[in-house]
């Protein structure tokens, strides 16, 4: 998913779309600090407060765009599968949630079968059946309920023009032979279907309680908490769901009795309140406010505060995107010259320094789960190689340098004016004059993601919908995913039959380790064409209140997990 996109605010901090890489040592320390006095058996009680910057938008499982079930949504909605709730690298694994296993593939991974666990109930005590899950997925196709990830429409058979249950009745490619079994028929092999089944669209919705667009006012919970009150965009109060118990859910601990979410706060205010921890704020956490560069300077001198910081990963890459359809970027020598000229040190400083970002030379984030295979085809060192860039420009027919335009978003995010001016300064050393074209975020998306209007060079970011190579590489480099009408992410407009075939071949694999290897090799191969200049993989630092325990970070989404944290 495009990381500058607002959908992501549901998953990770927007200012913070800075994640990645192998910091297991930091994680281990973070885990030790926060789990020291933690015992799941006695963790229950108290009120956990969540202080967030992003607005609470739609709490309808059909409308949420989440990774691994989301942070807050996962407290309400159980899904067929979910992310594994353990610290460390294993947190990128898929585990069963409502289902008994992560799914049984057949027919070359074109059919996936799930069986439900026993004793599952909604908050009103009615049993959860496979028909409720089928209905929940069908609703997400309704045009009234937009917002979810696009994969279901692409993957499910006969779903491309399906308009949801209100208009078009049932979807034939989901079968429910009995109350416990659900079978998905796909139109192409998708070995990563179990990852997709973690999305909230796979949460059960009782047809009898469905009130359409009003359902989000009181969605029927299948998780450990239910909605007590929901004041859109400001407050969400969750209380215990008595029909949930740890016997039927081995993933969520649900320690606090009550969870109160306050949204729309200023990020500086959130960090200040968490750092001070006065009164109720000692029991507070955030799911979307990263520490900023100015606060990092404080951490060094305040070890007590540093103990309440979670170091997180979220696989993402910020990069320069070339559109080779626009001159002079049709010439690979020009693209290589720019690859050599970038100064990753100044770029990283612009987004908060070495604690918030690592230099990137690969498109895949530097975590094994994505299939990361290190390569550096155009070694520029940390500060760039302007001499080599000049040499390549001369070969390309620009011995006196050239003038180009760099399009960027005006949002004060990781792809904003700060990065743009750093690139401008670095390219100047190589004789390239960069004119900046700043656009407000909506205009930026509209212009850059429509192939007909796409500029030659822009700053973009990409984060994964789930920890694997597919959602990272396919939307960017699969020629069949060039979307002419807008919403295109294949910014190089790259259509190479060999690459397309390899993507199809990897999608047939159902073993994540085997697939990861092939994704890494594919990334290394595409990297030689200099279609992008990877700039950095970001990292997040998140504060939590001083009474909060068990705040370890998941490698899946780069955040600590509210469903296992305790304030007691």
């Amino acid at each position, binding site marked *: 998913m495009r990381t500058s996109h607002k959908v992501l605010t549901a998953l990770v901090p927007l200012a913070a779309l800075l994640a990645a890489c192998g910091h297991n040592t930091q994680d281990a320390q973070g885990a030790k600090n926060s789990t020291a006095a933690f015992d799941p058996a006695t963790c229950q009680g108290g009120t956990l407060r969540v202080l967030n910057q992003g607005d609470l938008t739609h709490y309808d499982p059909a409308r949420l765009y989440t990774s691994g079930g989301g942070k807050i949504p996962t407290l309400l909605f159980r899904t067929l599968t979910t992310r594994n709730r353990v610290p460390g690298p294993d947190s990128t694994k898929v585990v069963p949630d409502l289902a008994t296993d992560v799914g049984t593939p057949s027919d070359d991974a074109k059919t996936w079968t799930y069986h439900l666990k026993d004793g599952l109930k909604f908050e009103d005590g009615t049993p959860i059946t496979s028909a409720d899950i089928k209905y929940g997925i069908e609703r997400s196709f309704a045009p009234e309920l937009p917002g979810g990830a696009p994969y279901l429409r692409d993957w499910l058979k006969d779903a491309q023009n399906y308009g949801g249950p209100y208009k078009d009745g049932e979807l034939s490619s989901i079968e429910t032979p009995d109350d416990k079994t659900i079978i998905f028929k796909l139109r192409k092999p998708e070995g990563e279907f179990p990852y997709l089944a973690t999305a909230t669209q796979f949460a059960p919705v009782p047809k009898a309680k469905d009130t359409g667009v009003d359902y989000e006012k009181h969605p029927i919970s299948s998780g450990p908490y239910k909605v007590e009150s929901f004041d859109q965009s400001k407050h969400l109060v969750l209380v215990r769901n008595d029909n949930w118990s740890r016997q039927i859910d081995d993933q969520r601990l649900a320690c606090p009795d009550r969870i109160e979410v306050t949204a729309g706060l200023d990020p500086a205010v959130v960090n200040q309140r968490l750092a001070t921890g006065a009164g109720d704020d000692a029991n507070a956490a955030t799911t979307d406010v990263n520490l900023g560069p100015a606060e*990092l*300077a404080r951490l060094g001198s305040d070890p007590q505060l540093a103990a309440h910081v979670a170091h997180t990963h979220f696989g993402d890459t910020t990069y320069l995107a070339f559109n080779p359809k626009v001159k002079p970027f049709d010439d690979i020598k020009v693209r290589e010259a720019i690859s050599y000229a970038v100064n990753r040190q100044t770029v990283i400083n612009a987004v908060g*320094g070495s*604690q918030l970002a690592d230099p990137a030379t690969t498109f895949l984030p530097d975590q094994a789960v994505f299939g990361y295979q290190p390569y550096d085809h155009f070694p520029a060192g940390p500060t760039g190689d302007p001499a080599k860039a000049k040499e390549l420009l001369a070969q390309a027919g620009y011995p006196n340098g050239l003038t180009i335009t760099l399009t960027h978003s005006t949002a004060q995010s990781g792809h904003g004016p700060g990065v743009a001016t750093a690139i401008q300064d670095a390219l100047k050393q190589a004789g390239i004059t960069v004119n900046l074209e700043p*656009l407000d975020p909506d205009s930026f998306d509209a212009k850059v993601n429509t192939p007909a209007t796409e500029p030659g060079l822009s700053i973009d970011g990409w984060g994964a919908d789930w920890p694997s190579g597919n959602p990272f590489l396919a939307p960017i480099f699969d020629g069949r995913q060039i979307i002419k009408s807008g919403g295109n992410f294949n910014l190089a407009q790259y259509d190479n039959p060999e690459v397309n075939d390899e993507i199809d071949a990897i999608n047939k694999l159902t073993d994540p380790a085997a697939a990861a290897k092939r994704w890494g090799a594919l990334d290394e191969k595409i990297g030689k064409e200099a279609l992008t200049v990877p700039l950095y993989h970001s990292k997040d630092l998140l504060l939590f209140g001083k009474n909060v325990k068990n705040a370890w970070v998941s490698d899946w989404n780069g955040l600590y997990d509210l469903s296992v944290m305790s304030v007691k």
Partner: protein
Amino acid sequence: MRHYRVGLAIVAALVLIALTAPLLTALEGQDATGFHPELVNSALGGLPNGALGGISADHWLGVEPGTGRDIFARIVYGAQVSLGVAIGATVVQVLIGTTVGLAAGMGGRLADGLLTRGIDLMMALPELIFAIALLVIVPAGFPRPLLLAGVIGVFGWGGTARLVRAQTLSLRTRDYVAAARLAGAGRVRVARREILPGVVAPVLTYAALLLPGNIVSEAGLSFLGIGVRPPTPSWGQMLSNASVWFRSDPMYVIIPAAAIFLAVLAFTLLGDGVRKAANPRTTGAAS
């Protein structure tokens, strides 16, 4: 009278600084847009190395956190933008305000009524919101300082127009104006030859007092991120970037804030002096 001299001295110094910015930065040996990653600590979020935000013999006012750009160079180049935009905006305000005010004062009952309501409407507009809307829709290629001066000017001429209209109404009943009319002078001629010289003094006074307000407007718009575009520096934009650093690098906040404070103070003192000089017997009537 003393204050006015202080104001004049500071204004003269600021204008000189703005005009000689390239010279001054050359003297310091720095430039306003060059990055210096070696002068900041990347692991501490880009905090400048050394005390007081990295103030040193090479960087007289320290360096910017994150980028390591020279703050002295950015302040003196920022003076060009801040003063240039403020003066340009004041010129626009005076030109439009005087024209509309004269026309209203000299026009018939209908023209006066319409123009006066127009002035009221202009003054009732939430200036900032319209300025933001306008600044966002104008294409990126348009020269930013020119646009800023235009936008601040176009939304801020109401006061000048009212002043000129009132002055015109009082002047047109004077004997010398009546004499000119009896001699056969047309309205336009009367406005230009008889009335205009009489409104120059109060308008100049008013303009001197508008200037500091316009400096603040430019700083405000740049603070909101819709002023001049990076890498061009402006004081408001520097203050905006600095606001999150107030705890860890206070100098970064103090320097642009002091520059804005000094400019506003100096222009206000100067404007006060002009007002007293133009109308020594009254205090506080001109505006």
